[in-house]
């Protein structure tokens, strides 16, 4: 049946799988951005650099300290998150009373610093990271490499775990309350500044986690975050940052749209997400899951 439209099933499902992988990264990254934006009102431009840092920390842990992938999967996000906490405590904190644009400019500067330092040390060519889960399964209609299956599963678990914590636990309810009225929440005796610091650390750790996941698939390179973050921004504009679930769903959906575009019109695969963004801006300016404010 698929032959009728001139596409082999292997190619279609193969690209769908790639799209799902990209979608997994979009989802985890835009989730981190949404969590940070919700509480801090800062668009974290450093997110791409922190994703790249996650991959590099995993690489350094492996090459220098001999820590295998599974150890890095836990350690790297913690390390990247800790760096994020230092950034929040020493710099971002001083900007909360100002216009939000200053947060954007500061994190943009930090992204340049981090990217520049890694480029100065490692150059722009990628470093290979060994695949911890070689092999795969033949599903009949397509071949599924085990590691790619793991990436999709791991990202789904992390995304929905985060969603559960924010929407269904007491801690999450504090967080949502502080998003609405930080002053009132503080008046009830909850340490909001600490909560802000930890939230930033967590959002950044999510980026680091995505970086470790990406290391065996893509080469570990200082450039890996910069272009990705712009696509993630477009994802965030499409989804609107008001909803955690919206950020996750939009991320996966756009990854799949991108994969399908690679099958049917490869020239546009780089730009399709931006085109979708333009269309959404025309039809529903607040974003698919956003509320007009």
């Amino acid at each position, binding site marked *: 049946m698929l032959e009728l439209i001139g596409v082999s099933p292997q190619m279609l499902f193969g690209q769908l799988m790639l799209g799902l992988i990209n979608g997994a990264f979009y989802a985890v990254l835009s989730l981190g951005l949404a969590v940070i934006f919700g509480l801090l009102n800062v*668009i974290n431009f450093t997110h791409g650099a922190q994703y790249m840092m996650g991959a590099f920390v995993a690489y350094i842990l492996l090459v220098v300290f001999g820590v295998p992938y599974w150890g890095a999967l836990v350690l790297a996000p913690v390390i990247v998150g800790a760096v994020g906490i230092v950034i929040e405590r020493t710099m971002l904190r001083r900007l909360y009373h100002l216009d939000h644009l200053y947060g954007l400019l500061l994190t943009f500067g930090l992204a340049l610093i981090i990217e*520049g330092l890694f480029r100065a040390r490692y150059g722009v060519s990628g470093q290979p990271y060994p695949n911890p889960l070689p092999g795969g399964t033949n599903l009949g209609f397509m071949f599924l490499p085990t590691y790619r299956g793991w990436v999709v599963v791991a990202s789904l678990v992390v995304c929905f775990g985060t969603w559960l914590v924010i929407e269904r636990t007491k801690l999450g309810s504090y967080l949502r309350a502080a998003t609405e009225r930080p002053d009132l929440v503080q008046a009830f005796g909850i340490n909001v500044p600490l909560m802000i610091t930890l939230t930033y650390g967590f959002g950044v750790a999510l980026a680091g986690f995505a970086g470790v996941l990406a290391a065996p698939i893509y080469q570990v390179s200082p450039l890996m975050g910069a272009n990705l973050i712009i696509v993630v*921004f477009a994802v965030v*504009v499409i989804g609107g940052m008001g909803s955690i679930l919206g950020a996750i769903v939009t991320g996966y959906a756009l990854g799949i749209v991108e994969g399908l575009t690679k099958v049917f019109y490869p020239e546009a695969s780089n730009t399709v997400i931006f085109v979708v963004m333009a269309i959404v*801006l025309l039809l529903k300016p607040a974003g698919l899951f956003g509320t007009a404010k």
Partner: protein
Amino acid sequence: MTESTASPSAATGSTATSSANSSASSSAESRAASAPLLTAGRIAFLAFLALALVAPLFLYPVFLVKVLCFALFACAFNLLVGYVGLLSFGHAMFFGGASYFCGHMLKVWGWPPELAIPAAALAAGAMGLVVGALAIRRQGIYFAMVTLALAQMFYFFALQAPFTGGEDGIQAIPRTPILGVIETANDTTLYYVVLAIFTAGFLLIYRTIHSPFGQVLKAIRENEPRAISLGYAVDRYKLLAFTLSATLAGLAGATKALAFQLASLTDVAWQMSGEVVLMTLVGGMGTVFGPVVGAAVIVTMQNYLAGFGEWVLVTQGVIFVVVVLLFRRGIVGEAMAFAERRRRRREDADAAAAGEPEPAATH
């Protein structure tokens, strides 16, 4: 989840006045002070022009041309961020886009520069009209993200479109004479041509800022809901300002294509959008001369650090962080605040010396 409507300069402006207002001063006083300040601006501009006219005697003209191109680019960007409060993170698409258009017109179509440069600027303006119409549908941080994403889209277009030359760009763009007589092939002559273009663009921006139209833009920056409630079609003003800013950024990019005989992907990449933000921030957002000073500082820095590769990036990042944390008003903004503080202190001292019966007791 609210989108911000206040502008960065509004935020700094309020801190500026609160810190400078140590003694009580009526609004009538500050209004009276704005008249001589205006002439101070004019004197500064004439001094700048005089300096610019003799500058090629002391400095390498090609370097000066580069400064002027980026200064015009930054001024065009500042019109938007400093006076409407819209932070565009995608201005490279107009700058780089116009430099592609101009390069193509000069090299492939064989148009003379006096036709190619304005045509390329207008083409960038048309792009600005489309992009602006989309982007102004969101405010604050989202506006920055939308412009960034659309610029990235244009980057991929430039990478793939046949006329841009992909990774190579358009090289060896001819420096043909203007009106058949002004030889742009000569570096010094070229410098004066670029200076004329810059001056025209700068004066247009100056005129715009100080026109009733510019007053409405500032009103939108300070309080958009109020401007709407006063009956202004805010979106139309924003769109017009965006288009004008894109056209002038295009004028800068087209001039750069002629001067450096090259249009490349560097000019449309997001790093370029970041650079123009940096120049404006360093010089002072929302000040008339800030972007010029900022462009001079950053271009000079890039020239000196050119041999250090990646450290240019790190240095730019550090400057971003330091300026955002410590000098949000930028060089010109801080200088103006300093002059204002001194003037106020002198006035206070004069008043104390003239009319106070019991001296030195109050202050």
